[in-house]
């Protein structure tokens, strides 16, 4: 019997449809159906100025907007031959790591709700709001930041930010202990999650699965470590790896990643306290768009001597490894923007980690994948 789980289903955490073939309670086949949130972001980007694409990036993955901004900005700088100042790189690292905590907290909330834990959902959302408040205090928005610019970031941190951020980090560190007590400390949780959704390292590599799912299978692969970008080469952190390859292992990896993010953030905050400086590259092409004088209509531009270029970037997004490919053909608009979404690949391997388990296992397994449909469909 085929059953449709979605597009409106409490399990999906977004707009997609998991078609499952079941025999009794056993899953014998499955077929994810995507595209319910396909907004044509890659196409719209071709009609926008380089900086204006950033507004779309926040909405591509709405739980990890900063990571996608960073991804795009890195590729666009490569394509436009711009070097951001060092402080901007640290600020971007700050954004990305806080975003990782925020995104993982959102995952935690959604995941525990899937297996029926009611109150940790609220705890996760509550603590995520603290992170969002930090974002709001220097970007002006909770989820759609529009903070990074090609060539740096929009503005510097407000005074008093770093002290407040440290307090939030202290608070979060204490909460992580509570989360573990609520989940790992509960035998029912372990019974629900151990040995579920196993995806071996070989399968992960074959199907293109990245991120915490890959690391939970014992593969120590992290773009921040392998191909460092922004300020990561100067920072000290560990790559969280687990060997269970199951839902519990993914839980462990994500919790450890949050702790590592806290560790990274303390270093970044210390650096930012002592190294003032500009946050935006000083010589930027006028046609980058706001906040510089806009280009306006096409006919305004009479003499074009823009440099051509192509940019490629890859970052460790909270969900996995994201890549961007930006082609600059010498105009104000990117010629082609192509993104690789980690969740896209993680979902395409559904058949490998879902078949053979039970219907009741679908929510924990899919919850452990950490789905963000916005970036899958784009």
């Amino acid at each position, binding site marked *: 019997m085929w059953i449709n789980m979605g597009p409106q289903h409490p399990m999906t955490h977004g707009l997609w449809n998991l078609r499952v073939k079941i025999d009794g309670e056993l899953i014998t086949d499955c077929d994810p159906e*995507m595209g319910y949130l396909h907004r044509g972001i890659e*196409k719209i980007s071709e009609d926008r100025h380089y900086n204006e694409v950033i507004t779309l990036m926040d909405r591509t993955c709405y739980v990890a907007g900063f990571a996608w901004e960073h991804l795009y900005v890195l590729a666009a700088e490569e394509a436009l031959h711009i070097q951001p100042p060092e402080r901007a790189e640290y600020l971007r690292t700050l954004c990305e790591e806080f975003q990782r905590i925020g995104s993982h907290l959102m995952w935690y909330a959604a995941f525990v709700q899937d297996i029926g834990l009611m109150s940790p959902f609220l705890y996760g959302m509550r603590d995520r709001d603290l992170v969002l408040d930090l974002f709001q205090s220097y970007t002006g928005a909770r989820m759609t930041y529009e903070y990074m610019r090609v060539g740096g970031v929009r503005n510097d941190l407000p005074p008093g930010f770093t002290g407040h951020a440290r307090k939030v980090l202290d608070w979060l560190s204490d909460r992580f202990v509570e989360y573990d007590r609520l989940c790992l400390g509960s035998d029912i949780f372990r019974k629900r999650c151990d040995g579920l959704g196993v995806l071996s390292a070989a399968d992960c590599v*074959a199907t293109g699965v990245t991120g915490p799912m890959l690391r939970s299978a014992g593969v120590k692969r992290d773009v921040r470590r*392998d191909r460092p970008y922004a300020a990561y080469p100067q920072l000290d952190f560990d790559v969280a790896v687990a060997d269970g390859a199951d839902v519990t292992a993914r839980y462990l990896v994500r919790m450890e990643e949050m702790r590592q993010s806290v560790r990274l953030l303390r270093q970044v905050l210390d650096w930012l306290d002592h190294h003032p400086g500009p946050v935006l590259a000083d010589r930027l092409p006028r046609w980058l768009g706001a906040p510089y004088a806009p280009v306006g209509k096409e006919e305004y531009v009479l003499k074009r001597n823009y440099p051509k270029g192509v940019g*490629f970037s890859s970052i460790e997004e909270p969900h996995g490894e994201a*890549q961007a490919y930006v082609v600059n053909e010498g105009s104000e608009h990117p*010629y082609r923007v192509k993104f690789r979404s980690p969740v*896209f690949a993680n979902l395409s391997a559904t058949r490998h980690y879902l078949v053979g388990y039970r219907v009741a296992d679908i929510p924990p397994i899919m919850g452990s994948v950490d789905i963000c449909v916005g970036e899958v469909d784009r």
Partner: protein
Amino acid sequence: MQSDDVARTVAAQIGERFLGLEPFPRTAGRLRFRSEAALPLFHTVKEQLGFHHLSMVGGIDWVTHREVFYVVWSDDRRQYLLLSADLPAAAPHIESAASVWPAANWHERETWELVDIQFDHHPDLRHLLLPDGYEAHPLLRSFQLHEPEELEVKQRSV
């Protein structure tokens, strides 16, 4: 150093159909090849050079022709490699990489429906993001976006 190795091995395997290795930011380079050599190249890159991980497949419409590119990653080299082939604008097609890297499956479905590049011997070439039966290929340059037309607003019938 590593790039030389890549170029040598690939040239030895596919010979004439290897068009060179260009430098490319943040990667080991962009390896250009003729589309006929797709399958042998994929096997070489995966099995001999150790690029086991396919990250991304994408297409670009250059109006005169189309380009399909693959991003692969090797855990041993810790490097990306771009594979790129030019296809004719009329009936562009290339051998599917799904038999070499299963990860290519969805990426190729997406590239097919958005950029209209046919992948031969693909196991399951259906629409992925767009509804079934959608005819156009939106990421072609000829496909223009426009402001939405004014549709009738539904009113509550009392």
